[in-house]
């Protein structure tokens, strides 16, 4: 399954990119699966704090992901 991913702030810096399209080998992944997947893909994320937004909504516990969803990895907020 194909997902579109956007990285921000210290996460983008750690990974070294802002956007990418990734293939996930899972029929119906949820956001917990995604967290595991991203840490496998990018071990540098293991000791970083981040949250996942799905289609511009903060993922509440274990949101199911669909093909072509817009996934964002959000480091801690610093607005204001």
């Amino acid at each position, binding site marked *: 399954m194909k997902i579109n991913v*956007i990285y*921000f*702030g*210290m996460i983008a*810096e750690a990974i070294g990119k802002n956007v990418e399209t990734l293939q996930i080998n899972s029929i119906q992944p949820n956001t917990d699966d995604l967290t595991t997947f991203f840490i496998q893909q990018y071990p540098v994320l293991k000791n970083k704090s981040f949250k996942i*937004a799905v289609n*511009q*909504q*903060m993922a509440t516990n274990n949101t199911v992901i669909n093909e072509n969803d817009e996934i*964002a990895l*959000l*480091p*801690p*907020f*610093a*607005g*204001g």
Partner: protein
Amino acid sequence: MSEKKIKNVFVEGPITPEKIANSIAHHQVKTNIGAHDIFLGQVRADEIDGKTVQAIEYSAYEEMANKVFDEIREDAFSKFDLTCAHIYHSKGVVKAGELCLFVFTSSKHRAMAFDACRYITEEIKAKAPVFGKEIFEDSSHVWKVNN
């Protein structure tokens, strides 16, 4: 969801005192307003491990952030008896001493303006996907995290 025009809250660079003055002046035609409360966030020249912050470079998940700001405003209108509520946030570089956040609430009476301004400010700090890179004089940086 209906097609709603979401307002853009982001301003390139610092928020100027002139922008604040203009915003205040625009509210003088609304003669049912008795009280305004304005919160301003200003970039501090914090010392971190012996180095001094010169500026914060703000980035944001802009499209989502604008939706979040819009929801926060809507919530404020439903919780408090407000005449107006406005939010502006910087993106890009804001130097120490410059302003990065401008929250402006207006109401007939002071209690609602105060409550709403504080509510909106706390919600922004907690919920808006905005990120800040604190830049030192030697161009090194750390990432800011809201408390």
